[in-house]
């Protein structure tokens, strides 16, 4: 009996090893995504609302053309795809606020899961949701008769999606700043204001001049401009690139700093 016990102890010790990739893996990502998709409120905000906005504000402009002859509905659809993606990635990033408030982060510290793997899972979840947001918005647009050159669909879609990384970082930043269970209740209105200033709901030219100048320094502006560039054909707007780069750096470094403070807090 003693021999059996010691040999199983030996086997058990030999089998002990840290998880591959610090615990980052597809099955966990799957559970995370299923978890988000089960939340009706989240689905409403990232999938249903942007689609309804298109039907309400996009469809009435049917038949109107941009200067280059492409439809205004395309402009609105791409803007709302950026909006859908940013809401999706922000809320997925900000989920860390809820998990910290609930004490789940503390529970995780008692497992071998590496903090970096935890954040990577959150970012990956955010990006899957962001992609879903873009695809749903584009599907609603296409079904409603938006017709664009193929390269515009692909380039604008990819830009809206990849640009949403800024907001995954933004969500994480807020998540590590404020451990609140209901963080999205105040993030929702904040995102709407940022989207407005970023020119996603109405063209910035319709705003007062001072507002237009301020708007160019807000975090949604750059992504919106870049995502619509393939449609408007204005080429690469370096001010927009600078805007995206600066905000990504700001939120990314800010989140990293707060994250470090959170994980080394003792």
């Amino acid at each position: 009996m003693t021999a059996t016990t010691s040999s199983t102890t030996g086997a058990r010790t030999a089998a002990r090893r840290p998880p591959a990739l610090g615990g980052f893996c597809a099955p966990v990502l799957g559970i995370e995504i299923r978890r988000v998709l089960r939340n009706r409120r989240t689905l409403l905000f990232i999938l249903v609302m942007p689609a309804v906005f298109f039907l309400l504000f996009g469809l009435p402009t049917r038949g109107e053309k941009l200067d280059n002859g492409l439809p205004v509905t395309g402009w609105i659809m791409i803007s709302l795809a950026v909006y859908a993606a940013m809401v999706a990635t922000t809320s997925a990033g900000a989920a860390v606020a809820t998990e910290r408030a609930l004490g789940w982060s503390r529970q995780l510290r008692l497992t071998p899961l590496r903090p970096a793997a935890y954040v990577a899972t959150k970012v990956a979840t955010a990006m899957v949701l962001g992609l879903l947001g873009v695809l749903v918005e584009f599907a609603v647009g296409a079904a409603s008769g938006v017709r664009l050159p193929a390269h515009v669909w692909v380039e604008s879609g990819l830009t809206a999606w990849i640009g949403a990384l800024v907001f995954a970082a933004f969500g994480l930043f807020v998540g590590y700043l404020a451990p609140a269970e209901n963080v999205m209740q105040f993030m929702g209105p904040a995102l709407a204001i940022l989207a407005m200033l970023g020119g996603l709901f109405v063209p910035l030219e319709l705003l007062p001049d001072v507002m237009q100048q301020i708007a160019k320094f807000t975090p949604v502006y750059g992504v919106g401009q870049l995502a619509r560039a393939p449609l408007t054909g204005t080429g690469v707007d370096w001010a927009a690139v600078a805007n995206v780069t600066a905000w990504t750096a700001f939120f990314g470094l800010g989140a990293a700093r707060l994250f470090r403070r959170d994980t080394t807090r003792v």
Partner: protein
Amino acid sequence: MTDSVPAVDLAGLTKTFGAVTAVDGLDLRIAPGEVVAFLGPNGAGKTTTVDMLLGLARPDAGTVRLFGGDPADAVRLGRVAAVMQTGGLLKDLTVAETVRMTAHFYGHTRPVAEVLERAGITGIADRAVGKCSGGQQQRLRFALALLPDPDLMVLDEPTTGMDVEGRRDFWQAIRADARSGRTVLFATHYLDEADAYADRIVLIRQGCVVADGTTAEIKNLAAGRVVRATLPGADQAALAALPGVRSVEVRGDVVLVHSEDSDVVARHLLTRTGARDLEITSRNLEDAFLTLTASA
């Protein structure tokens, strides 16, 4: 096996929060396979000690070694697992999803179905965590702690806030997990839990170990035992002179000797005097607890 590395080795552990010294130079060594109750009143420093033991808090002074290494390494290899008072759970996951997800955070685990079974929550596997009772959530935390098949299981006041039935079910699950060789350390302020489940009790007060021994030793240490016998004309002075005797009381023909070493008293009474109807009664653990943890 005699020279085996201790499962837990705390030396000179100290932690202060502002002006309050929560843990004050605490030393504790636990051998592999021991089941130890960490007993003390609220505010004695139990949770702070457990936090430092698990690497969740950094000591101001002193060292923590688990199996001869750093707590972080023990956590990373799944050698230590804990059921914490405050460890949160995600309300929107089901019980089984929580266990499956956590399993992926380890390099190697027991099968999910097995830990659900051993924690007694197979029947509620598909229930959302937010809809589970406090006791069920605690058994879920226990299931999570079972996943890595840890060599050391730490339980921080695991049954606080549970009703009687919940506590019973929880301890049944712990007992059912009687894998030989697992070291268990549980903090509690329930005396009956320490008495019923631990091999060894470490009593702490104001951040220091004030007593450490088997349940019987702890009871004896604080309160001793009372030897009662019928002995007309007892020689009180002779009894009081026996080693360990604290007090002698005579009530008619009955003598009551309160002693730290009841064996000596009993032997004396039965061999040197005509005492009969001898009874030895132990003070219960509650008396020991109150005596030892009362502020001086």
